[in-house]
């Protein structure tokens, strides 16, 4: 009952202009919400006690998907919109696979790209494929807008590099290298689980050697991360057994997983290595889904 009383006192704002978002969020204990799939649970559990919630759903500047050579994905884009967008799936297969693997149909209809990223959870499913695609993030504030590497958005578990007055506007993707393919692999105990570990790889095979290799990981460090040493172990090399074995070892070494109720750090390390090997085999074997 006490929780219900607290909840009934929470203000809920639905601004239609970015300028109003900036003004409203200046008040103390004010939280921004997009899809609400994370915040609404945390409010219910008392993990956060907002005085006011500001819904971003009506802000036109934060929506929309545009695809040309590259893509611009508005922060309010729902995960189900990514699943349905064939243009994105064709060029950024790993992103589509990650979107499809996220939660349930119900969750995908609510959860947004911006929410998934700005929660800064180490296990955000959309982060590894976006990191492996060299995504950039556009951030807006009353002071103007700026762009940053998506990798620089994540500072720690639930901590982003956004200033208190900044809002993520969109994600920008450059054209993937010609001939490149990508894949996303994730382990959960059952379909609805948060990822125990996930790996996204983007690469191309040129004259029998791996090129433009990008490897990113989820649930394997305090933030979603690029695995640069794994990339170096693969770049320019043929995907033979020796190289795969070195890449697998590099992945086990480079990740910094924790042990928690869902999996031990050792098991997560094992998954990191196994997924890197499996991803490269799959992409180099030509069936790069």
């Amino acid at each position, binding site marked *: 009952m006490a929780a219900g009383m607290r909840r009934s006192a929470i203000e809920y704002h639905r601004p239609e202009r970015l300028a109003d978002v900036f003004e409203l969020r200046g008040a103390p204990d004010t939280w921004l919400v997009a899809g609400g799939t994370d915040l*609404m*649970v945390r409010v219910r559990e008392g993990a956060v006690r907002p005085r006011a*919630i500001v819904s971003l759903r009506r802000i036109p500047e934060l929506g929309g998907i545009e695809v040309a050579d590259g893509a611009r994905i508005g922060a309010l884009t729902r995960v*189900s919109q990514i699943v349905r967008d064939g243009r994105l799936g064709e060029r950024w297969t790993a992103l589509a696979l990650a979107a499809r693997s996220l939660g349930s*149909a*119900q969750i995908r*209809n*609510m959860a947004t790209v911006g929410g998934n990223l700005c929660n800064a959870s180490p296990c955000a499913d959309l982060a590894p494929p976006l990191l492996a695609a060299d995504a950039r993030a556009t951030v807006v504030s009353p002071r103007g807008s700026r762009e940053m590497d998506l990798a620089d958005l994540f500072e720690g578990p639930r901590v982003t590099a956004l200033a208190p007055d900044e809002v993520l506007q969109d994600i920008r993707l450059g054209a993937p290298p010609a001939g490149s393919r990508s894949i996303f692999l994730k382990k959960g105990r059952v379909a*609805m689980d948060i990822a125990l570990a996930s790996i996204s790889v983007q690469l191309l095979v040129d004259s029998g050697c791996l090129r433009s290799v990008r490897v990113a990981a989820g649930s394997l460090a305090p933030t979603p991360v690029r695995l640069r040493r794994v990339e170096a172990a693969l770049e320019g090399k043929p995907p033979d057994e020796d190289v795969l074995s070195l890449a697998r070892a590099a992945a086990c070494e480079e990740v910094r997983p924790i042990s928690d109720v869902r999996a031990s750090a050792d098991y997560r390390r094992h998954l990191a290595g196994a997924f890197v090997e499996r991803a490269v085999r799959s992409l180099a074997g030509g069936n790069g889904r």
Partner: protein
Amino acid sequence: MKVECAFVVNGEPVCVDVAPAARLVDVLRGPLGLTGTKEGCGNGECGACTVLVDGEPVNACLFPVLEVEGREVTTIEGIGGPGGALSPVQEAFVRHGGIQCGFCTPGMIVTATSLLRSNPDPSDDEIRDGLRGNLCRCTGYVQIVDSVREAAKAMREEGADE
């Protein structure tokens, strides 16, 4: 402090006074008396509270009611035809015993109905995947998948007849 919220439920326009941050599930089950929608986990994991908003399944336990203003909500009460007629999905659940304690059933049927609208001929894997956000703690999944498969077949045949 309450605010007015106007939307459409099962084809009927409604206007209710709500706490600004109230959840859709509480407004449906409380002032609107639509108790077919269940609250299980309250975290968006079990799907017992599944309703359609503008035709798309969502978890009513995570949906702020003010976000349905001006939109159309369909609950389990709006899935069947007039006069208590059962939909093909509901009929198939009855025939196959796709129901044990019944608590997950409204959410299962709402999700399955939406699944079959977008995919009229799903494989068993697609049915299981489509229902992965709906948990049955009696674990009656075999009968539930049987029910959805047969409902799909019945709906395809009905469509072919017309």
